[in-house]
């Protein structure tokens, strides 16, 4: 059974703060791990992905994520957030059959 858990439903920070959005997964076999962003009223947009190699992957707009096999985690980080980063962030896990499972999302609010 594949599961994706995003433990924080809401995260509020101030502009310029750093942020970490947490994602834990359970999945048997080789996996892809991804993060997507959804601005209000829009579809999801791909941020970054990990499959193998360097466990720290860089995405767009200064986001990065770190894969940890021992912790079964793929947390998303940004060193200095901007108000435009306010959105819902989804972690996703997928295997070789193209079935992609999403977490419930974390709403990030960036206050000025």
């Amino acid at each position: 059974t594949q599961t994706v858990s995003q433990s924080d439903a809401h995260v509020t920070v101030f502009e310029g703060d750093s942020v970490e959005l947490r994602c834990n997964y359970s999945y048997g076999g080789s996996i892809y791990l991804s993060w997507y962003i959804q601005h209000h009223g829009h579809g999801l947009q791909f941020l970054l992905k990990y499959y193998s190699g360097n466990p720290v992957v860089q995405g767009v707009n200064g986001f990065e994520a770190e894969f940890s096999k021992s912790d079964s985690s793929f947390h998303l980080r940004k060193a200095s957030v901007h108000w435009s980063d306010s959105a819902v962030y989804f972690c996703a896990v997928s295997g070789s059959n193209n079935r992609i499972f999403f977490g419930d999302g974390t709403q990030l609010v960036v206050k000025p």
Partner: protein
Amino acid sequence: DMKVTQMPRYLIKRMGENVLLECGQDMSHETMYWYRQDPGLGLQLIYISYDVDSNSEGDIPKGYRVSRKKREHFSLILDSAKTNQTSVYFCASSFSSQNTLYFGAGTRLSVL
């Protein structure tokens, strides 16, 4: 231009009416998906299509069917819509080997 287009964007139907949601993509992606998104429930996979006439049920297929007669086009059909099918529906596509989804902007369906 890499795009997933959903039509219509907004739709109001009465219970028992038939509903057709349409999705097109211009990237020649083999795999296409239909998800629904409800508050607090994240994204739930309804159907996945691996290519023309090669469709598989997702996690919540009951009450839905799909049609894919051309690679670039994937339709979701609700025969006799129910009020609990009120939701936002997202179509997505991907190259089979890359597991990165491209989403449409969504269709907000209200069944009264």
